[in-house]
């Protein structure tokens, strides 16, 4: 059965890039525009890995990570942050909130696949 990923980002371009890359690696990819949408979708969908931006309206990445880790269902979900170099603080916050790993934007597609495989097999 194919693995499922979810990409959370308010930029459609970024979501499309992640989706395109991961589909090429055999993943099914769901998309959400912000943390709140992601949580709503996750209430009825299984995912094997979540890739999230940190700066989003409505609910940002760090808040999303905290919400996920507080839920037993998602406590062991591999979560990757997509960060930029100006995001050092947020990245640290996300890390302590429970993010599994991170990737710097703009990302190299091979690296994304490698990192995704590393955190979710």
């Amino acid at each position, binding site marked *: 059965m194919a693995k499922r990923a979810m990409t959370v980002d308010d930029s*459609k371009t970024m979501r499309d890039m992640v989706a*395109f890359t991961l589909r090429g690696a055999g993943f099914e990819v769901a998309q959400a525009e912000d943390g709140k949408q992601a949580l709503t979708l996750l209430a009825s969908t299984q995912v094997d890995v979540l890739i999230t931006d940190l700066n989003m309206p409505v609910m940002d990445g760090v808040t999303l990570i905290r919400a996920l880790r507080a839920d037993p269902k998602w406590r062991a979900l591999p979560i990757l942050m997509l960060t*930029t170099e100006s995001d050092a603080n947020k990245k640290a916050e996300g890390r302590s909130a429970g993010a599994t790993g991170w990737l710097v934007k703009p990302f190299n*597609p091979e690296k994304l696949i490698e990192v995704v495989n*590393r*955190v979710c097999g």
Partner: protein
Amino acid sequence: MSGNVFDHLKSTYFQECSELLDQVYTHLTALDDGDSDPDTVHGIFRGIHSIKGGGGAFGFDRMVAFAHVFETLLDLLRDGKVVLNKDLLGLLLRATDALSDLIAAERTGVPAAAGFETAVRAELDEAASLPSAPTPSAPVRSVAAQPASGQPGLYRIQLQPHETLFKNASEPLLLMRELRRLGPITVVADLARLPGLDALDPESAYIGWTIELTTDASAARIEEIFEFVNDQCDLTITPAGVSAVPELEPEPEEAAPTPVASAVAVATTKPDSPDARRAEQPAAAQTVRVDVEKVDRLVNLVGELVINQAMLVQLGATLPSDMCPGLITGLETLSQHLRELQEGVMAIRTQPVKSVFSRMPRLVRELSSQLGKEAKLFISGEGTEIDKTVIEQLADPLTHLLRNAIDHGIEQPSDRVAQGKPAQGRIHLAAEHRSGRIVIEVSDDGRGIDRARVLARARTRGLVEPDAQPSEEEIDNLIFLPGFSTAETVSNISGRGVGMDVVRRNIQALGGRVTVQARQGAGSRFLLSLPLTLAILDGMIVAVGRESYIVPLTNIVESLRPRRQDINAVVGSGDVVAIRGEYVPLLYLAKHFGVPDAVTDASHGIVVVVENEGTGQVGLVVDELLGQQQVVVKSLEANYGEVEGIGGATILGNGRVALILDIAGLRSASAPGRASRGETRRNSNGHAVAALQ
């Protein structure tokens, strides 16, 4: 860079940039109006941040470098480390303008002038000048010096996770797998820290491992595997020299998954109750993005349905009325549903006019500063929805009108103050629906129209009869005539009399009208009236010989069958018909289009009086009226070309093509004094054809 892989997403990116920039401008305007909501600044930051993020993926280095400096300032702004004031706001506006240009340069492939953004960038740097944030210290780990890579080396890896490792959903098993991809490994577990069952926390990590890995990968590559966990464990990677293959090779699956790890896994990966597979998507999003092509296909299909339905109605009409009564009522119901479907589909194609309006404030800013005027643009009704096809064509005429307002309308600040007006001129751009059409207004509080000068100029140019006494409104609308300009100095912005008549032509090409009302000294008001959509037309089908033509309903004034005595010949011009004391020139469509076997005596046919934008009325002579119908406009140009007097084609209920008349084109084609076409040749249809070159 990954640019090649993602090239197909470039257009998505540029579209997104355009939306993001719109939002940024909206936020900046809000700030200008005194909005103090912190979310506004956050929104601006996120917009620039997203633009930068995407741009990097495509290698738009110049734009990204600029965006980075911009983003840095915005970051400080949102953290409250820099205070917002009027000057800073002006800088943010100019920075957004510059960024927009840099993006456009990437989109069009035409690079921006060298150094054009340097000044703004320097200002941004200055505004953001704070000591740079200290770089976060690198995590401490110990890695001994490694042997040269490329040689198979043996590494000893000690991995002792801290108890909190699982809080980040890190999975040691996966790390082992990845290590094994580099080469054969042996793993020995270290249970020293494992407490008794009563003290065991299933979500804490206790077990450590010693891993021996034989690989020709470099130590750096091995470190990379641990990059996410190395601050949550004690990790040492020690090369142990070139070695033989280790004797034992137990499968990592046997050693690694400890009772603790698998317990955690079971506890957290069991899927939820049946709700986990609910069919319907939660209504999280309120909008759906659809490709334009998909919408256009839908519109075409619905158009075909309309034609099919018309065909069915026609066929149904040939049946005896009692033969299948249900059929007729069924067709009527179908017709109603189709109309609703059509309206629904056309509504999908509409877009708020905002997408065109949003560029205008910047235009006004730039023109004002270029011309030394002060003007502010106020916009209302930007949510008004217009068909996409119309919106795209609005940009040019609107730009012209705004230029005209700033260049000729708004006076110099000193002049304005002398008149008791505020130094800053007001320009208002508004859109609204009015009786089935879109009305767009561009008004200013400038000097209005100098009617005496306009009339004098028109007389000099022979555009008005010497003894004619046009009304005030008629004088105002003289400015739309070609070749008209009262500017004493031809400014290189508005150009020489090119503006207004081009605007009128553009609007007319959309099936619209433009008029002006002015109050001398107090301002001008331009009104554009446009149809809701270009793709569907309400038309009157007329018969000329064996051909059918469509006359757009908006052009029709009236139709009548004239009496013989009302038709008179005017020497050198043609026939006219007298209608309530006025003489309307006649255009015999049969003769104009070379249609054989048609009615030649207007009193035996019908005269359809049409008009187009103040160019006067003309009576089209046709054989008969066949009925009114909504038709789908199909392009003639796609496969054939332009034909003067014809503005497209449609497919009637009988499947045949009917040409749609372009009234403006007919008028100019029929103007007296045009060179005759030479000998009339006819093709196999009996139709007159052009002489071969």
